């Protein structure tokens, strides 16, 4: 069991006078950082800062060690066989784009097909639209059912010898759907397609093992898992990285440069052009230490319990419509209250100190399919507790009362 009061004491943001009253229910957008992460970043800059892979002095060696240790830490966190399979990016979006440019640009040909699920965040859809346009390939969509679930049997109907890639999220940021990935991945592999998993909403909340999943690519962002902004990860099986071309060129990604041509560095460094966000990588490693210190099983159980409680408390509210699978789902609860627009609802709740997300959650295909313009969304993490859920419920009832003459 997670002791939330102890956890919250680790997060300086909650102790600031401006945030004393804050009920933060938008961790699916970004999380806060514990002091352990902030201190690791601070310590790197204070003690070990230099440009890694470059200087021949001890300080630069320490910076290199800090950066490469962070890579190993990430590899261990996601169960990668070797740290060379971890490429640092700015965020999950950049990681998807790296696969789109580095892999798809070479391996997707005219008439090929890319399968994307309807649940995808724009970051795992738009890059594939662009690949399809550039390469003359076709996008096919794996549909979700009324509850928001995908069906592996339907995937079989979409797969053919033309399928090159399945792009699938592990947890939907809009509906909370948890996709049991293995059957989808196995079917895609059987048809000869590779699989890119969007782990932005899963890696922060549950133990993910890339080898157990047999995922070809996994992307996620540091800032959604207590790490700093501006650091993300692409995991790829080593053979795929070897078969990929870089899409950013410049310093540190080369092994030899002539006047007219150059040779690339080894993987993963050939994908990391220019001076990298070393402090970001160090901060992400510290976030992983922090999460492992609590235990990902405990984090997952805490999120599950709170999400179940939220669904339980919200469902009976008159005229409240919940979207997504019930009751098991990721720590994301999407809903609408009567005809109150989610924006008006979010503004009202903000006045009560409650921060929720409102809008389309960068998943307009999901909204279109459900016939919605927008939803309100509450999402949870290890620093949220039952009181936060209670405050949300009270806030919603007050909002309904406040807007009743508007309905």
């Amino acid at each position, binding site marked *: 069991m997670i002791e939330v009061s102890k956890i919250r004491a680790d997060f300086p943001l909650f102790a600031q006078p401006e945030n004393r009253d804050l009920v933060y229910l938008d961790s699916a957008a970004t999380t806060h950082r514990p002091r352990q992460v902030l201190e690791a970043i601070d310590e790197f800059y204070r003690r070990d800062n230099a440009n890694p892979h470059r200087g021949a002095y001890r300080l630069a060696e320490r910076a290199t060690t800090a950066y490469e240790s962070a890579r190993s830490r990430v590899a261990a966190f996601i169960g990668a066989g070797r740290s060379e399979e971890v490429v640092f990016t700015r965020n999950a979006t950049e990681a998807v784009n790296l696969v789109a440019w580095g892999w798809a640009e070479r391996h997707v040909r005219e008439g090929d097909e890319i399968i994307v699920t309807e649940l995808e965040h724009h970051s795992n859809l738009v890059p594939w639209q662009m690949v399809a346009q550039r390469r003359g390939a076709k996008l096919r969509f794996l549909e979700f059912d009324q509850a928001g679930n995908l069906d592996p049997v339907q995937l079989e109907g979409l797969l053919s010898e033309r399928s090159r890639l399945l792009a699938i999220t592990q947890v939907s940021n809009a509906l909370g759907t948890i996709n049991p990935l293995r059957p989808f991945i196995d079917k895609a592999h059987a048809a000869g397609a590779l699989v890119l998993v969007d782990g932005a909403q899963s890696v922060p909340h549950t133990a993910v093992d890339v080898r157990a999943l047999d995922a070809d690519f996994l992307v996620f962002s540091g800032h959604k898992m207590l790490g700093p902004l501006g650091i993300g990860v692409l995991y790829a099986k080593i053979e795929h990285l070897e078969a990929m071309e870089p899409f950013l060129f410049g310093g540190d990604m080369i092994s030899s440069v002539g006047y007219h041509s150059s040779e690339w560095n080894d993987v993963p460094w050939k994908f990391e052009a220019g001076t990298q966000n070393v402090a970001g990588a160090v901060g992400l490693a510290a976030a992983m230490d922090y999460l492992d210190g609590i235990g990902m099983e405990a984090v997952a159980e805490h999120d599950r319990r709170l999400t179940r409680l939220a669904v339980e408390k919200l469902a009976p509210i008159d005229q409240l419509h919940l979207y997504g699978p019930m009751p098991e789902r990721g720590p994301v609860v999407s809903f609408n209250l009567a005809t109150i627009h*989610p924006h008006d609802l979010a503004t009202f709740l903000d006045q009560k100190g409650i921060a929720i997300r409102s809008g*389309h959650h960068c998943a307009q295909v999901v909204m279109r399919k459900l016939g919605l313009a927008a939803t309100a969304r509450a999402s949870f993490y290890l620093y949220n507790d039952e009181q936060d859920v209670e405050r949300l419920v009270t806030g919603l009832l007050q909002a309904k009362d406040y807007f009743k003459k508007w309905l």
Partner: protein
Amino acid sequence: MALDELYQEVLLDHYKQPRNKGVLAEPDIRLELKNPFCGDEILLTLKMAEGRVAEAAFEGHGCVISQASASVMTEKIKGLRVEEVAAIADQFTHLVREGKYERPEGEEFDEIEAFAGVCEFPTRVKCAMLAWRTLLQGLKEHGGREHLHDHHAHGAEGETPNRG
């Protein structure tokens, strides 16, 4: 409380009974804009006559602020010349961004003043501006360019981009 400053009675009235809701047949100007922040949409249709807005109608869905703003706007601009519309849009922009409004001498309360509370809610400025941005862009495309300032139609200034 600040919330009551935002959700004023005037807005309630326009939200519940929107004026000029619908789509004009054979419009001179027809433009649809989306608020990328929330997915709200507005379709604006205008009929022009002798450089004036003869008729205006809007269709769409969205929050209280965006819908009431569209309703008030369509009433307000009817019969006005393009440059007068631009001047009011200017006033409205200042009002929702900075809360500033100079009521012309001798004039009574203007319904657009009811949007003064928006400036306390920076994330909602876009909602209030959606209909006006659509209007200005529509007029610009129609050829009223010389009367209009570019920055209105794009709404960059003072509104943080919030796309998803």
